[in-house]
């Protein structure tokens, strides 16, 4: 549905995108993930024709965004980071304007009504845009992107500035839209991409670091096994004892404390399980183990490893 090939974009001497390539299939939800300044918005702006790349091509459904901009743009709905709303218009007036702007051929009123229903803004149709709450504005932004029923939706940071309830609503909406549309969304919120996307492209400093399915991404890096264990005992000696166990690579306090117990991360070599050794070693010292669980690697861990060649040990992360 979308093919991005060898995109290069620079702002003066600053290289924003460096040979970025990826493709997105039909009805797939792709997350563009990266820290601020990674090139996510630049990539999206090029995909939608707002900016032009110095090199490379973007094809939407086979239509090149530079050579056939009209045809390519008809196939895209774009929600920029700041929803492009006219504050002086009523919601329905604004949607009618977008409908006319996109030169749609559906029944106008029925189409707008359907989109209002999907994005759950029907009750705000007569309201002035500048009086809408942030959540409504964001949903109106998504509604304008949906006008014309484009095959591809490009959503730049769609949950930014929303409260937790609104974030859940927008995520659910995006999941629903993913059944009918190809969706590309950008985010620097890792859990959001994990919760919504089928696939993730991780960008950093304009380069693609990783292009994987969300559920298999943590397997893309060589990782150590890790457990989190809560022990009642003297902190320094517990850590030293843990570090002395066979196969243990590192052990460190997490900083969490519950009554008289402390939590520790214990990393061991890939493929090993040190839980029994930990239990017996602590029992020998008469330090009760009050909790123990396997710690998986979240997308955040993967992201940090890829972008920072990360030192992940000792940081508090929970799956």
């Amino acid at each position, binding site marked *: 549905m979308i093919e991005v090939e060898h995109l290069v974009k620079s702002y003066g001497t600053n290289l924003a995108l460096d040979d970025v390539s990826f493709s997105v299939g039909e009805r797939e939800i792709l997350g563009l993930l990266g820290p601020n300044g990674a090139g996510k918005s630049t990539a999206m702006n090029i995909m939608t024709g*707002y900016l032009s790349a110095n090199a490379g091509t973007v094809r939407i459904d086979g239509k090149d965004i530079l050579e056939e901009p*009209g045809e390519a743009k008809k196939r895209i709905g*774009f929600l920029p980071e700041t929803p492009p*709303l006219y504050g*002086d218009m009523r919601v329905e007036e604004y949607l009618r304007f*977008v409908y*006319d*702007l996109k030169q749609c051929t559906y029944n106008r009123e029925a189409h707008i009504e359907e989109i209002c229903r999907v994005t759950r803004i029907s009750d705000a149709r007569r309201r002035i845009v500048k009086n809408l709450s942030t959540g409504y504005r964001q949903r109106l932004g998504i509604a304008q992107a949906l006008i014309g029923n484009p095959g591809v939706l490009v959503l730049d940071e769609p949950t930014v500035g929303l409260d937790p309830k609104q974030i859940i609503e927008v995520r659910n909406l995006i999941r629903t839209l993913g059944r009918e549309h190809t969706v590309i969304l950008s985010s620097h919120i890792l859990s959001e991409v994990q919760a919504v996307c089928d696939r993730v492209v991780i960008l950093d400093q304009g380069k693609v670091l990783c292009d994987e399915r969300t559920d298999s991404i943590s397997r893309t890096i060589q990782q150590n096994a890790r457990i989190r264990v809560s022990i009642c005992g003297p902190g320094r000696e517990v850590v030293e004892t843990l570090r002395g166990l066979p196969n243990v690579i590192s052990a460190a306090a997490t900083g969490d404390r519950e009554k008289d117990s402390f939590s520790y991360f214990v990393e061991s070599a890939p493929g090993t399980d040190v839980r029994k050794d930990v239990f017996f070693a602590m029992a020998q010292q008469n330090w009760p183990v009050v909790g123990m669980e396997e710690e998986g690697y979240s997308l955040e861990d993967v992201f940090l490893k890829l972008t920072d060649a990360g030192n992940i040990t000792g940081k508090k992360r929970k799956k």
Partner: protein
Amino acid sequence: MFAIYKREMRTYFTTPAGYIFMAIFLCAAGFIFSLTTLQEQSTDVSLYFQVLMIAYIVLIPLLTMRSFAEEKRNKTEQLLLTAPVSLWSLVLAKFLAAFTLFLGTVAVSSLFFVTLGMYGDPNWGRILGCTIGMILIGVCFIAIGMFLSSLTDNQFTAAVTTIGVLCGLVVLAMLNGILDSYVLRLVLDWISIYSRYTNFTMGIFDFSSAVYYLSMCGVFLFLTVRVYEKRRFS
């Protein structure tokens, strides 16, 4: 293109922008008209148009300052530039909307001449020539104002720079009278927007001047399109 034109026209009348322009224009025109013709008890409108042309320096920026600067500031230009609409359509739609409001206001101000017709015998040919000349100059100024509005995201900056540039054009015409060099005078005379207006004040439709004004308008609309094309690549 029609969608953008419609929205622009709607904005002129749902926000104070259009009303402020029309009110100030008509007040200024009425004041100048009463001073130059009614108080002088003259049916010669040349002076009225000459003074009104100076007033354009402040009036036209009121009309054009928000056209692109506001879109940029509100980030709504992303909607327009990612829609299946060409840059030329976008620029022309905004230009035509501003021109429509300008033309409507000029038409209303033309009612002043009815009073002249009631109490005197004005030279209608001259009035028509001057009006056409003023409309052509207005078209040219609107294009300049829109170009300058596309360079900034601040309406105030757009207005001030437009006033500055239009003042510069007046100064250019004044320089013509004090320069010794014949060649320089010839060049200034050729490029000066004001000196080309003279024939219209005599009731003569100067075709070359009309082409000049429309060409200037075309050049600045082209430059506006280029600003957006360049920004896309910068």
